[in-house]
């Protein structure tokens, strides 16, 4: 074996080893979610038996999922998560795209300090706003409502910054000017001309925000009190307080909480990445 082949063999061994270490917790969670309590304690992945590949397939059960679905209000929590994540990501993306457009394409007097304001907002640590933000929501009567989660998310400084960069690069000023000469209104120019030119960034930011809201735990935990409003992150964590030793149930709950966003990302990954690169080429 030549030294080059040997080196390649070592590299592949390391890469595959690490890939296995990364995937094993997922596999363990998946198999655990199909097992009874007894089998959870007595087998690591799948229970041994006489079936195909020496696995007792007939001992696997959908009971954990059935109970989550019928007894623990998981469909409601999942709808809540979908609703919150969709509405928030749409609103935040619109607000970010509009703000970025104003800073990138309008040479108006306040542009300089507004840009500085957005940049300095990037370094404010989120936990600092937790206590006074809670107090403000209390004073505005927005505690225990989706408005209390939705409204504060409408000022994404990071998003404004990203869209500003994207629009500086890929929206030619001449195009906007000639649209104005042709008599198009400002709002129409924004939606029919500017937004299509930054489609890759729009898609990327929608996804980032959706993922962030879906996975957010601390804000809904602090703001919401009514169980029927809880998103999956809070609902599944609360479930653990009551059914803490019901490991299969917890794993099934965790799995159905992460599966939708994982699928979404894997499905959109190709378009997402090709969109990003085409945007870069256009600029």
């Amino acid at each position, binding site marked *: 074996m030549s030294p080059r082949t040997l080196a390649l063999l070592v590299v592949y061994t390391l*890469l595959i080893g690490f*890939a296995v270490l990364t*995937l*094993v917790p*997922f596999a*363990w*969670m998946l198999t*655990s979610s199909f097992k009874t309590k007894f089998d959870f304690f007595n087998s*690591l992945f799948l229970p041994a038996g006489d079936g195909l590949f020496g696995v007792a397939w007939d001992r696997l059960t959908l009971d954990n999922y059935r109970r989550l679905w019928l007894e623990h209000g998981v469909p409601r929590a999942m709808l809540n998560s979908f609703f919150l994540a969709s509405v928030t990501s749409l609103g935040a993306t*619109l*607000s970010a795209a*509009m*703000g970025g*457009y*104003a*800073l990138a394409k*309008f040479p108006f007097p306040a*542009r300089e300090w*507004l840009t500085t*304001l957005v940049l300095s*907002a990037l*370094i*404010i*640590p*989120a*936990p*600092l*706003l937790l206590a*006074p933000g*809670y*107090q*403000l929501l209390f*004073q505005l009567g927005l505690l225990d409502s989706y408005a209390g989660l939705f409204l*504060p998310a*409408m*000022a994404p400084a990071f998003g*404004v910054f990203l869209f500003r960069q994207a629009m500086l690069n890929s929206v030619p000023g001449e195009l906007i000017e*000639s649209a*104005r*000469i*042709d008599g198009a209104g*400002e*709002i129409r120019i*924004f939606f029919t001309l500017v937004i299509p030119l930054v489609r890759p960034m729009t898609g990327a930011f929608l996804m980032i925000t959706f993922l962030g809201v879906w*996975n*957010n*735990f*601390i804000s809904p935990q602090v703001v919401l009190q009514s169980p029927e409003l809880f998103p999956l992150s809070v609902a*599944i*964590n609360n479930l*653990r307080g009551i059914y*803490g030793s019901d*490991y299969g149930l*917890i794993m099934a*709950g*965790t799995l159905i*909480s992460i599966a939708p*966003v*994982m699928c979404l990302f894997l499905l959109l*990954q190709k378009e997402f990445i090709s969109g990003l690169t085409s945007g870069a080429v256009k600029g």
Partner: protein
Amino acid sequence: MRTSRHALPRVSIRAFPAWAPWFFIAPFLAVFCVFTLWPLGRSLVLSFQQTYGPGTTEFVGFDNFEFMLRDPLFWKAARNTALFTCGSIFLQLPLALGLALLLNRSGIRGRAFFRLVFFSPSLVGLVFVGMLFALVFEKRTGLVNYTLHALIASFDPEFAWLQNYVLISLILAALWLYIGLNMVYFLAALQSVSRDLVEAASIDGANAWQRFRHIVLPEILPVAGLVVLMSIIGSFQLFELPWVLLNNTAGPDNRGLTLVMYLYQTGFLTGDLGYASAVGWVIALALAGIALLHRRTMRRRE
């Protein structure tokens, strides 16, 4: 279109209605003022007050900050946060760089596949990672102890990760979650390093370490610096992962207490938003200091 452009006077070509930029920035600006700037100012005022729930307050001057200096729980939280940060920087980031270097070797097949696999945990929310790893580190039945006991008979299956080795468990869970994300940054930086330059050095007789040290490292240093800074910022804001991992507690003897967890406990469980805000400002000032230090070091390097 060209003729109409020439027919119009120059001024009106560039002109946009004065309200237009303000209209577009308005949603961001309004929400930003109400839900970021106002609370930011409030938190400064609050940090000089003592509060009982969100309703009643009392001005106490610097008492909150003085109390913090003598508060053993605050120092415990600070110590835990600092140790976790060190774990991220000195364990996770070198491993992420190592993985990126392996993936960046010429002739590696399935690069996109490996990148996707390593990246996939970053899609899982902190709260779900916490729930998963609470069971992974469980005594006897957990993935780690079960496997280690099966491989090494002398390994104690009752090994109490989440009782006695809280910070190590936390660092390992965060490693699984974030290593792929950091690897993606390093890989992007490595891919911009000229292969010709590395090959030329190789022909000139430079060994792998010399090539890395003198050609690759200087090139990726700006990105590496940024990754380190982001890791520090992320580590300082650590809350959800340990909170959920330790079943909505700070762990036995507060072994998993972090600064933001302490902020949450004092503000929302004890109900003293004033003290919580004071803790928040200390975190913010520490981060600002680190960011300044980082900028200075990176500038001196250039």
